């Protein structure tokens, strides 16, 4: 007992000595710095070291993911294609000024837009993208978030001059192209932290698909999502609907629609042409 106490005492003493030495050194260091500074002009501000920029040269340009934004591809109609090519030129001109990143329905975005009535002249909104609509310069996307227990959806026009910055905080896809059913889902699936840090994502390879199946609030919903015309894959129907209700919903199924050749519109060749056209436009100037 007495022996360990003695050892403890010695340890404490050595620690105290070391601490004193350290303090003494620091004091001496600080005074020396002060003297040096006094010799010269004012004390220089602390400049942190430059962060090293890592350029990944292992992956070539060819392996980058080829992405054509859906608003470039016009639907089937009788208008003159010259109108679409002129519109595409204007869209590329705007994209040279404002960087519109690649994103999908289900990704989390942060948009800063000019607002004359706010203090800092800008306002920032973070939300999950639930729908991408419109073609050409009128292309829009709807962001949804729940703020103070209130669901908020804002529809932004991508090519509006009021938009200052579009940032992708999390890039991912979902099972559906249209997530309007999140309005009738539990609020936890739409809440996004406004101060969320951007998640890093790679520019090559497949976009991660979030195969989450969402739990819904009790019926009535804004739309009857169980009907086959919406073709919703991301809802957990087994928790909210009975098998009889699911069967009843199948009465509205139109099984001949997938065999109707009139409804098919193959855009693959059109998309390739538009992609090369845009690359050429972006390269000039």
């Amino acid at each position: 007992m007495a022996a360990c106490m003695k050892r403890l005492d010695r340890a404490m003493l050595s620690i105290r000595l070391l601490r004193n030495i350290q303090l003494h050194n620091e004091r001496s260091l600080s005074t020396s710095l002060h003297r040096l500074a006094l010799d010269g002009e004012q004390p220089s501000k602390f400049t942190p070291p430059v962060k090293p920029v890592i350029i990944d040269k292992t992956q070539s340009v060819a392996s980058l993911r080829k992405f054509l934004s859906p608003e470039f591809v016009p639907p089937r109609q009788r208008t003159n294609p010259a109108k679409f090519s002129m519109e595409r030129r204007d869209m590329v001109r705007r994209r040279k000024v404002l960087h519109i990143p690649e994103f999908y329905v289900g990704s989390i975005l942060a948009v800063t837009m000019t607002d004359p009535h706010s203090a800092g002249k800008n306002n920032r909104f973070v939300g999950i993208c639930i729908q991408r609509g419109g073609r050409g310069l009128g292309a829009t996307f709807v962001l949804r978030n729940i703020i103070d227990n209130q669901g908020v959806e804002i529809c932004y026009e991508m090519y509006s001059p009021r938009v200052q910055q579009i940032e992708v905080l999390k890039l991912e896809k979902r099972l559906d192209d249209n997530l309007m059913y999140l309005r009738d889902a539990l609020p936890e699936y739409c809440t996004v932290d406004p101060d969320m840090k951007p998640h890093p994502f790679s520019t090559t390879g497949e976009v991660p698909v979030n195969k989450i199946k969402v739990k819904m609030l009790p019926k009535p919903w804004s739309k009857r999502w169980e009907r086959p015309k919406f073709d919703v894959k991301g809802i957990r129907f087994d928790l909210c609907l009975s098998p009889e209700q699911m069967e009843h919903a199948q009465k509205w199924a139109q099984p001949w629609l997938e065999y109707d050749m009139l409804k098919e519109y193959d855009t693959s060749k059109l998309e390739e042409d538009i992609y090369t056209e845009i690359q050429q436009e972006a390269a000039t100037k």
Partner: protein
Amino acid sequence: MRLALQLLISHGRVARRMGLGPESRINILRNILTGLVRHERIETTTARADEVRFYAEKLIDYAKRGDTDEKAMKMASFWLTEKDLVPKLFKVLAPRFETQQKGYTRMVRLPARLNLDRAKMAVLEYKGNPFPHLSPIRKENELTLINQLLKAYREERSQFLAAKS
């Protein structure tokens, strides 16, 4: 305008309405298409022939993909209600139109039906069918003066070119 009004006015709508509804329309067209593939020349109303024309050509495009293609087989088995016509489609009709890109069918209008409805009739056929031609072929008469002179000119020219080379 109000959405209900939009449903009643059909300005600019190109899709035809047939039968009792969309399912009925597809069934009618399916039956006509099956008859066309079986007999290669059929007589129907003008509107139905016009609608079936599009589906007939698209079916040939699918058949050109080959019967190993899953989508092509599903389409063929859906559109042809008589299943013994599926091999005919893939083995007879698809090779016949291999060299052509489009225009596999021909539609010719007929005089109206003599029934009470006086419906406009048309004949729809796949090109290359074994029947005689629908419209008479105009044969040039070789024995007219101009044709005889042209024939002699062509012979002299070929002799001249042969002698030159």
